[in-house]
């Protein structure tokens, strides 16, 4: 069976509000899928349905060949899930908490101890092993959440914002962990951070208003940003009108928002632009190629019509 996670027309509504609206998705082994989308887009709701915490209103989620609604326990045995905010029992220590999860996951004795030790080392929790969870920093709490999802080495990992609230070093570490595990698992993570998608995901989907709006590799996604590969030049002194006039022959020109002396040129490339600048001896201070940003892709794909162009 090649698809470890299979969603077919998965939908969830709360009363009249439709949170997830007919999502189709297949995730094979070895893939790290990034869920991107604005707040309230339905990312978490979709993940909750995959993990078996919420029942879909219609449609079907199949995990490792088992229908989540019909065989929830089989699915939960094969799946590691870290809910949004990585909740855990604050009155326990990471040690007692992982012990509890390992027991529920069916491990005993030496095997249990080995799994706990291994996981604690992987997520670097040993220094706070005997400290109450509610006294831990956000980064440690997040790692406790990760540890409980990984302890049984599941085929499928669903992590809701695994790096939210972590400092750059911790983010780097968690991404490394995900990459390490990616080979023989199907992993879904949700995130707001594009660089994270570029760093760890082999595929990304954008969800907004409960619908799947884009699906592709992170590189393909970035190309959808109209500003991707645009050439930006900073003009010296007050020659901006002249520069604008010259460059407008090469593509669409606009002044960069908030920067009166910068001009963005879309539909050309840096080589041609720098050649023109040299030939016409334009007063240019700096020239660089822009990369697509998540903000722009978000606005482009997910914003309601009217706001996107504003």
């Amino acid at each position, binding site marked *: 069976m090649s698809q470890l996670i299979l969603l077919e027309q998965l939908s969830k509504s*709360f009363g009249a509000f439709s949170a997830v609206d007919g999502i189709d998705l297949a995730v094979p082994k070895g893939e790290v899928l990034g869920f991107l989308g604005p707040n309230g887009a339905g990312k978490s709701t979709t993940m909750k349905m995959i993990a078996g915490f919420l029942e879909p209103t219609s449609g079907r989620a199949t995990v490792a060949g088992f229908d989540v609604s019909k065989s929830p326990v089989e699915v*939960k045995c094969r799946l590691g899930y870290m*809910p949004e905010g990585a*909740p855990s*029992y604050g009155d*326990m220590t990471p040690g007692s908490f992982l012990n*509890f999860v390992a027991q*529920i996951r069916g491990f005993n004795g030496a095997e249990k101890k080995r799994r706990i030790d291994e996981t604690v080392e992987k997520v670097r929790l040993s220094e706070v092993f005997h400290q109450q969870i509610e006294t831990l920093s956000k980064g440690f709490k997040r790692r406790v959440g990760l540890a409980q999802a990984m302890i049984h080495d599941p085929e499928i990992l669903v992590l809701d914002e695994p790096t939210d609230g972590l400092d750059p070093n911790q983010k780097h570490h968690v991404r490394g962990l995900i990459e390490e595990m990616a080979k023989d698992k199907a992993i879904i993570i949700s995130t707001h951070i594009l660089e994270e998608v570029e760093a760890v995901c082999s595929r990304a989907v954008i969800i907004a208003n409960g619908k799947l709006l884009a699906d592709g590799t992170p590189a393909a996604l970035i190309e959808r940003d109209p500003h991707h590969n645009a050439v930006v030049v900073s003009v010296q002194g007050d020659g901006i009108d002249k520069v604008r006039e010259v460059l407008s022959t090469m593509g669409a020109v606009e002044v960069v928002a908030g920067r009166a002396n910068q001009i963005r040129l879309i539909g050309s490339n840096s080589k041609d632009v720098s050649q023109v600048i040299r030939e016409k001896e334009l007063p240019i201070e700096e020239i660089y190629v822009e990369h697509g940003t998540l903000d722009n892709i978000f606005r482009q794909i997910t914003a309601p019509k009217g706001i996107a162009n504003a």
Partner: protein
Amino acid sequence: MRNTYIIAKREFVAYFTTPVAYVFLVIFLAMTGSFAFFLGGFFSRGQADLVAFFSYHPWLYLALIPAISMRLWAEERNSGTIELLMTLPISTTEAVFGKFMAAWAFTAIALALTFPMWVTVNVLGNPDNGVIITSYMGSLFMAGAFLAIGACLSAATKSQVIAFILAATACFLFTMSGLDLVLNFFRGWAPDVLVDTIASFSFLTHFQAVTNGVIDLRDAIFFLSLIAFWLFANVIVVDMKKSA
């Protein structure tokens, strides 16, 4: 069974990691004692029995049991850990039963710690220890019924305060349903069958029968079936939130 045990163990330990357990135990012991001695006239009765002690249990449970049951589900819902618990490979029934057993075991400990009363009455006279044992059993079963009601209502809300108030109210109705205060409300218009049915649900009536030394299987079945019913309702409430 294994999962139920693991969950029960975690819940049970959780009581003791916060001051709740100790505050509860101290207050429970202080109140059972003082009720028996001052209100119940333990000494002035001049009888070697524990009726003065047991007869206040329903009233104490009314206020104290909801304090034990209120956190069972409301806290999980509030802190989001319910999402964690319900995505572990366990069934809802196992979770419901495990939590209930933890709370029940905790009450059993509170009840067992009242043993000085039993020692006292044995030193002072020759009580019928059979009646005392059945009374203890009856009290434990009644506590179980209160807890099952509280656990179910705790699953219906995020707020422990609301869970407490709902449980206390429901327990109050069950305790009082044999008394005229409640029955007169129905007598005017409801058929006798209904009035009798309501009256038959009274915790007081059933508990008094037990403490009087009448061992009737029906009283045990009454409390056990109430526990079963409310735990079943608890499973439904938890599952309902899943598809909400």
